[in-house]
């Protein structure tokens, strides 16, 4: 096993261990008790779904154009 595989293999193992261990704990008080937390009650991106559909439509039109031109 070369050094590259050894080093990045260790990084992968440590990262997965960190994710599975730390992930199950709640965030710190400092993170949870903030005044500037994301306000999930405000829908700032209501047009998001529309944008996805527009992009899909553009892609579909381009595919059709490619097939027939």
């Amino acid at each position, binding site marked *: 096993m070369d050094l590259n595989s050894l080093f990045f293999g260790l*990084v992968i193992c440590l990262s997965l261990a960190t994710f599975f261990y*730390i*992930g199950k704990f709640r965030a710190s008080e400092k993170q949870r008790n*903030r005044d*500037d937390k*994301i306000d*999930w009650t405000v*829908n700032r991106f209501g047009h998001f*779904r529309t944008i996805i559909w527009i992009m899909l439509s553009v892609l579909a039109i381009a595919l059709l154009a490619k097939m027939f031109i």
Partner: protein
Amino acid sequence: MAKHNALQMFGRSGNPALSDTTFRSEGRAVGESMTLQGTVNKTGILLGILVLTAVYTWNLFFQTGNPAAVMPIAIGGAIGGFVLALITIFKKAWSPYTAPIYAALEGLFLGGISAIFEYQYPGIVIQATGLTLGTLASLLVLYKLGIIKPTENFRLMIVSATMGIAVLYLISMIMNMFGSSGIGFIHSNGLFGIGFSLFVVAIAALNLVLDFDFIEQGSELGAPKYMEWFGAFSLMVTLIWLYLEMLRLLAKLRSR
């Protein structure tokens, strides 16, 4: 605000996989509710499925030595995964079924693509995997400790940048379809191309912070149990994007 009202009105995460009614339409769980442990476990299951199917296309490439043997499967996986992702985004209650299939299909795609990159640049896949998971773990620690604080402005910035990148990629893809070389700087290995890739990697990584916040608040507010699968799915979408961008960045650096 009362927790109940908060859940009824819950909005969207900045992650492109999450729609504007992610929790708002789901309400408070009647039976079991979403937990952090459950979401982490489900992320592990999805990662396992992804690796299993990735190994299949990876081996297929190295056994045949022919990209043509894996490309139909990889492209099929990418298109199938994209369709499944859309279904999961719009039908969150189906995520316990659609998320594992999504992971399996994306695994077919990633295995094929990774094998081709590995053949061209030996050692690149383990580097990209290490950097992706290293970023995940580092950002999770920074988030849990409250060092990175996702705010409304943060979310606005990340969502806008993500949408901008999506539109740019779409234009480049359409230009490619009609014989043009696409938007040159996206794919170039010059300083500008590498700078662009670094920017995209940073935006993909910061999307992880929004995922963490989404999962944290979802479990705190008692979202339905199936939202664990949806939370795990949204993490997977970001991780797959980050991994692909890491691969592109490393390939650009190695090809100089």
